[in-house]
């Protein structure tokens, strides 16, 4: 089991408001998965270079040119709440 503090901390970092029941369930399920993942520690990876990308690509650039912007109506079409041409959100603090 993961401790309640850890579950609470991770849920806050991930911006998830979990119910008591969810916290309990995830605490044990995550612990199972992490325990299973523990087997990775058996491997000596001291001198192994990590693979972040499978392809050996490098230096992929675009030219500094201005292209089409989205029309405001399309930009805001999906907004759950808006005012004028802005996205509207509840107060920050």
């Amino acid at each position, binding site marked *: 089991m*993961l401790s309640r503090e*850890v*579950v609470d*901390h*991770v*849920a*806050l*970092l*991930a*911006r*998830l*408001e*979990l119910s008591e029941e*969810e916290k309990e369930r*995830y605490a044990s*399920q*995550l612990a*199972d*998965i*992490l325990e*299973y*993942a523990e*087997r*990775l*520690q058996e*491997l000596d*990876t001291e001198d*192994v*270079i*990590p*693979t*972040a*990308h*499978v*392809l050996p*690509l490098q230096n*992929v650039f*675009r030219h500094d040119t201005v292209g089409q912007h*989205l029309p405001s109506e*399309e*930009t805001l*079409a*999906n*907004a*759950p*709440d808006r005012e004028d041409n802005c*996205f509207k*959100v*509840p*107060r*920050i*603090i």
Partner: protein
Amino acid sequence: MEICELTAHKLHNLLTSKEIRAEEVCLAVFKRINQVEDKVKAYLSLVREEALEKARAVDRKIDRGEAISPLAGIPVALKDNLCTKGLKTTCASKILYNFVPPYNATVVDKLRQEDAVITGKTNMDEFAMGSSTENSAFQKTCNPWSLDCVPGGSSGGSAAAVAAGEAICALGSDTGGSIRQPAAFCGVVGMKPTYGTVSRYGLVAFASSLDQIGPFARDVTDCALMLNAISGHDSMDSTSVPTELPDYRNALVEDIDGFRIGVPAEYFAAGLDDRVRRVIEEAITVLEQRGARVEETTLPHTEYALSTYYIIAPAEASSNLARYDGVRYGYRVEEAEDVVDMFSRTRSRGFGAEVKRRVMLGTYALSAGYYDAYYLKALKVRTLIRRDFERAFEKFDFLISPTTPSTAFRFGEKVDDPLTMYLSDVFTLAVNLAGLPGVSIPAGFVDGMPVGLQLIGKPFSESTLLRAAYTFEQSTAHHLKRPPLTGEVK
């Protein structure tokens, strides 16, 4: 065989010889959808009118005597994580229940340029996280071979649609087996190309370093045609390869004489259903009869692939899914006190259980103090897994294995136990970790349920895989069987 059960290349011949019209093909597919969609539930949305309009445009081209492309007038379904301009793209998630993208994914534009007829958007596990399509927020898709079984996942809707004649071909995405596993469960061909072959621009990201779009088709020829249409460099995707890719139709040759095929022992170990094993052994015999030399080999780090995958994929997912916060699009809770409250409650109610589980897992793996032990360690083991394949490919042209340890399972069988569910991807996910191409083709049946044979190749060796798959297919008749669309409906 009915029109909706034909292949794209057969339909293309009928269209160009004017024996059939594109509108007829489209109507036939929508008629089948009307008949069976209640049972299969493959689609989340349908665009009948647009599809018919497009089909008629293709007919006009043919009438004018213009040449048409191989996919012109062919009804194609799209997984609902591919962005379609003006058409809802939900990823089968409540959090995107009303999201209408203002742009098309590159693959969607490419299919449109080929004059393919888009039928609609297919069901999937929410954000492609799952192996049964049971994690869809909206509906459960049934396996056309037995309606009380899952179609596999996460691209279950696309696989079921092609199997049931509700589309001729389809697109899916594959992060750990999400094309190949449902293709195997539904008895169709499904391919995950080499990472970088198909542009990811417009594919709603699950795990960016593993995701790749690929085709579902009824046979290997159609698979090659679809791959031709969607592959190629895209300046909108920095991880898209800039090299010229071949015409995959040239690979459709019935000849594997002298090919060296490796059979990784680890993929035939405990956990593999004996009946599935026998089907695969028969398939190996067929390949040998066609002149291939089949030998056992080893991928020693296979047992670590699942752990590696279940660190890397959730970590990337936790990052990719951070943007769903109720500010710019999608679902938002009512009456939020402040922004933090709005974010947390929107995400809690908008995401389903599996997504939340993986976001929690990924956030944990990346958080301070755990990064080195989990994420960095997993990236290093990923290197070891890649090296296993590199070593095997020094000796073999490609590898074969069962696509899945068993045939399609029943609804509810694995939902409560995430680890067991994850194990159904055990033969497919190492291929994503190594960025390799993999294809699943129909290899036979167990109790009337399809079994998939997986071919795994070197990077950018899709032509070799297609050639071997084509040779196998032409030597067998599994791909000609169509599902009964029966079974106990839940």
